[in-house]
């Protein structure tokens, strides 16, 4: 049995941790020196400087067919520094890239004042030189491409300092090794599954953040990931890959051994069913239900990024999906969306998107994004847009706290029309009949964007993830699993024509890294028209010889 031990870290892999203030002191000395003196004559000065020091300590293991494939660990301390030159109104950012131009440096993981200050010194020097070049290019560009009513580049706030001492993952790799080996051994009995693995990784992070606006924050947290992956080839040679993923924070309940073994068995069943499933053999245009996890993936691909205000850089021609649409209908009148970072749990499940203050030091409150189908506002960071001139505390660091973008916290979509899954299916069949079709489809799992949240959907057509487990539903309601389908992007206007929502809701946690969690809560979604076609894949012939696993104990 594996038990979680949770505690604030005092020891980091055999090395005593340095008191926090020592690190902050080294950082402050160099930040202040640069703030006061980093300036090239006749050039624009920095008006904002920020530095983050991050300690990462992680280990991972992979097992396959009951044996250890890889085991390793990594420990490092890094520095990221960025700065802004010019003014809050117009600075060096948002020219070519949506990300800030941070400079990084690796420093010893053992405390070393000089090495930290030197790392910061070099990073600021490079950041400043890059910033003044970018600032002058941006100014030159804007002279040739003037913009009216351009919002400022950075919002003025008095940032809050936060100390969030989270728990860390204190699991021993040795304790987990027998579990992942046992789970991976489940696949030994199935020679039709060509490759399979069970991997586990634990990552603990501590981040020290200091800015010239006097923001001083410390966060420590951890993330445990378990992935079961398997692949095989269908009879026609098409390769099929599926996985089962679980991302957990130190405060989550860790799975029992039995749950991991069960997940391995389920993965076998899901893959085996897909290997035997017929391939989709038509081009379809008609109603589709996105159910459970597939509904989450639908929201992650469409509404979540579209409702985050991440204005594109000035050199891009794209516009935001819902730009200039506040007050207008974007969804059916029975749909509401709120984003509530204050919620800690929902329907008994801990939410990953819970926090008080965002990575830019702004307090986050509950936000109504869509009310009765009408757009009420956007998720906003300190990077303003015409639609969101001030931050509402959604500046989340996606690669460390310095690289912030506007992103959801706990993104909750609700329907005032309450339908259960059976009623949803009936609605689907009604539409199928109405359109004179022989069947409709239900998507239950998609090739999700995995743990990555798609934040930059800026096209008028929204890209949808391809289905993995999709069921053809005939007029009598009978379901057949089909494989090899892809979905065409849908126009934004199609969202308004969502026919029904119900069932569930599914509560899903998405964690890209320690410290960045988003929760999506959504019922199943029935869309009136989705175009489905066969995935263009080149099947490869199956192996000529039988698998060495084929023996007396093998199944299938």
């Amino acid at each position, binding site marked *: 049995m594996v038990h979680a031990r949770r505690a604030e870290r005092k020891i980091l892999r055999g090395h005593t941790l340095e008191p926090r203030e020592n690190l902050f002191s080294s950082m402050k000395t160099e930040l202040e020196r640069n703030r006061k003196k980093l300036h090239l004559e006749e050039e624009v000065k920095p008006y904002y400087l920020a530095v983050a020091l991050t300690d990462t300590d992680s280990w991972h293991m992979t097992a396959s067919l009951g044996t250890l494939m890889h085991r390793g660990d990594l420990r490092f301390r890094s520095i990221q520094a960025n700065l802004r030159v010019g003014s809050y109104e117009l600075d060096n950012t948002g020219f070519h890239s949506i990300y800030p131009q941070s400079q990084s440096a690796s420093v010893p993981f053992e405390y070393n004042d000089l090495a930290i*200050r030197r790392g910061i010194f070099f990073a600021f020097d490079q950041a400043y030189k890059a910033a003044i070049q970018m600032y002058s290019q941006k100014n030159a560009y804007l002279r040739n491409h003037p913009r009216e009513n351009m919002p400022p580049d950075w919002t003025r706030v008095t940032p809050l300092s936060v100390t969030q001492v989270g728990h860390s993952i204190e699991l021993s790799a040795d304790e987990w090794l027998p579990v992942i080996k046992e789970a991976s051994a489940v696949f030994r009995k199935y020679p039709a599954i060509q490759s399979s693995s069970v991997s586990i990784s634990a990552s603990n992070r501590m981040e020290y953040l200091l800015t010239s606006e006097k923001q001083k924050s410390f966060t420590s947290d951890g993330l445990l990931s378990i992935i079961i992956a398997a692949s095989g080839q269908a009879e026609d040679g098409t390769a099929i890959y599926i996985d089962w993923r679980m991302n957990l924070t130190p405060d989550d309940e860790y799975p029992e051994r039995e749950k991991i073994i069960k997940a391995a068995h389920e993965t076998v069943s899901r893959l085996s069913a897909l290997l035997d499933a017929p391939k989709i053999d038509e081009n379809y245009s008609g109603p589709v239900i996105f159910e459970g996890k597939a509904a989450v993936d639908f929201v992650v691909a469409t509404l979540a990024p579209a409702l985050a205000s991440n204005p594109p850089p000035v050199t891009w021609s794209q516009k935001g999906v819902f730009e200039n649409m506040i007050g207008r209908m974007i969804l059916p009148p029975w749909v509401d969306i709120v984003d509530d970072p204050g919620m800690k749990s929902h329907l008994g499940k801990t939410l990953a998107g819970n926090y008080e203050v965002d990575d830019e030091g702004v307090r986050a409150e509950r936000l109504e994004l869509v009310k009765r189908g009408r757009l009420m506002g956007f998720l906003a960071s300190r990077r303003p847009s015409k639609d969101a001139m001030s931050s509402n505390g959604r500046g989340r660091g996606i690669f460390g706290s310095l690289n912030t973008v506007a992103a959801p916290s706990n993104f909750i979509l609700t329907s005032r029309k309450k339908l259960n899954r059976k009623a949803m299916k009936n609605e689907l069949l009604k539409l199928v009949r109405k359109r004179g079709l022989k069947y409709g489809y239900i998507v239950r799992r998609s090739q999700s964007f995995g743990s990555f949240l798609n934040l930059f959907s800026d096209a008028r057509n929204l890209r949808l993830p391809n289905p993995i487990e999709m069921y053809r539903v005939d007029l009598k309601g009978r379901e057949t699993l089909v494989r090899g389908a892809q979905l065409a992007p849908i126009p934004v206007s199609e969202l308004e024509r969502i026919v029904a929502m119900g069932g569930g809701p599914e509560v899903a946690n998405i964690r890209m890294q320690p410290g960045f969690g988003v929760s999506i809560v959504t019922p199943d979604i029935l869309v009136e028209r989705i175009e489905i076609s066969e995935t263009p894949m080149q099947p490869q012939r199956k192996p000529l010889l039988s698998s060495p696993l084929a023996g007396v104990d093998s199944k299938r």
Partner: protein
Amino acid sequence: MKKKCLPGTTPGSLSIPIFSVLAAMALFACPGGGGRSASKRESTVQPHHEKGLAFTVPAVEKELEKKIARLRDEGTEPLPLLGIMEKELRRTHEKLRDPKGQPPYYVAYTVDETNNIFLRATHGSLDGDSENRSRMLTVDMRVGSRKFDNTRYLERNWGAHGGALPLEDDEAAIRTGLWLASDRIYRQAIQEFDRVKSKYKTTSKEEDDSDDFSEPVKTVYFEEPIKLELDKEKWREHLRIASAVFNEDPEITTSWVSLQAASNTRYFVSSEGSRIQIPAIRYQLTVFATTDTEDGMNFNRHEAVYAGKEDDLPGIKELKAMAEKVRDDLRDLRNAPTAEPYEGPAIFHGKAAAVFFHEVFGHRMEGHRQKLRRFDGTFTKRIGERVMPSFLSIYDDPQMTEINGKFLNGHYLVDDEAVRAERVDLVKNGVLKDFLMSRIPIKGRPQSNGHGRRSPGMMAVARQGNLVVDSDRVVDYEDLRKLLLAEVERQNKPYGLLFREVSGGLTFIQRQMPQSFMIHPVMVYKVYPDGRPDELVRGVDLVGTPLLALTQIVAAANDFEVFNGICGAESGWVPVSATAPSLLLQQIETQRKPVPGKKLPILPPPEPTGETTKTVQRGK
């Protein structure tokens, strides 16, 4: 194709290259076997007509034979992994058949089991501390016949990559990995075979239409794996102390001191009956640092020591001295004037001469380059002809582990194609005699001489091992300088050049590129005829063409030096060494180095404080 050689791991990177490391067994070169102490020579400006240092290894063959015989007599069994590999190999070779394609006529599996320990420190504290184990599979699969097979045009170097295998000897799991990789690589091989057949029919014939693979080789050799042991705590402390040396120079931009210890056991089975289990271990200690100059140049200096035993690594005093040398060289380079392009006489000091021969000559001795018309073929038809001064002889001998007590990085006993490594006399008294051969035959050379080498996953081709430049006419180093100055005066030049340290080099070996080479010297000195001290200069690379450059050598010193490094080419990165005396060349040419143009930091670097390098007390 450009080949680049580095004298160590990639600078500035924490990643650890995968080495095909072979064991440093207790088989020592015998410097007494014809060589003699260089220091006893008389000083004279006239070149000596006598033997320099001859490096012979009479004990090696016997030792190896004895070892094999002993293992067989005692019935020593290989580890279970080899047996598992053999089982799947037999099934693959006997049964893997595409109904429309040809069966493989040759299959070999290599598993490289590697354990790597990496420690690194900067500014007196650790920034790298890791240990990793892996098993990497390489699958060689040949379809067609020895005369003509899927590898004909040597165009797919990565075709043998079989992926990772389980770290435990579980038969079903390992055989599953071998099965999947074999099927994939066989599929590629038959597709490749059809492609080369049609290319053969539709393009004009290569001048050398030799077979694609040599006659079968059967080598059986088992040796117990070597356990990687390292006193980590001691080395952590040594690295901290040595790396703190750079705290004294704030103008150093990057600096670190690292230790990499790697053990590798190679398991090899082939359809020709070879069965090999051969361990190796190697340690590499590196000091690396960089600095920038006011005019936008960037310099890096490194010192690396390779060893086959932990005990042979430098102690803390020597390690600190290495770091101090790197630091002081960089300080001197920052203050040195820039050099202008130059043509005239120069001395290549030992290591620089060794790199010069490795790049300019060694790569052009690799057998497969004589076969295809896309390679330069500079020396292909010059066997029996004089290609350099008659006092020089060159050979490559991977069996040697040391020269005069200095570790040789290119040592191995059996190459990556299961062929026993042989000494190859490439040049005898200035006359070209032979090429380095893998199992890819060329006209007149149907067999390998044990130089088929590769990184895991690549296809083996002929590569250098321990290249040795020997001279039977040597002078003391001081006399070589006198000869340089005499040449400076004869050519009416204001100074000669002395190349002391190099960071690496590259050479072009494809016909579509100019047949040139480039050496990257770091420490270059002007040597004046008027008795002024040598003057360090910076900012030049050495360039030239091979045929001409070799004829410019006019004298050699008796101060042989070893350059150990990792060489990269089409079959991946392999450890090599080159040993050479200091050489005087009548004419060389330099060109300006590229200048990154980075401006020095705007603010002065942070000053150390009293508490600068305190390292926290380590816990349990």
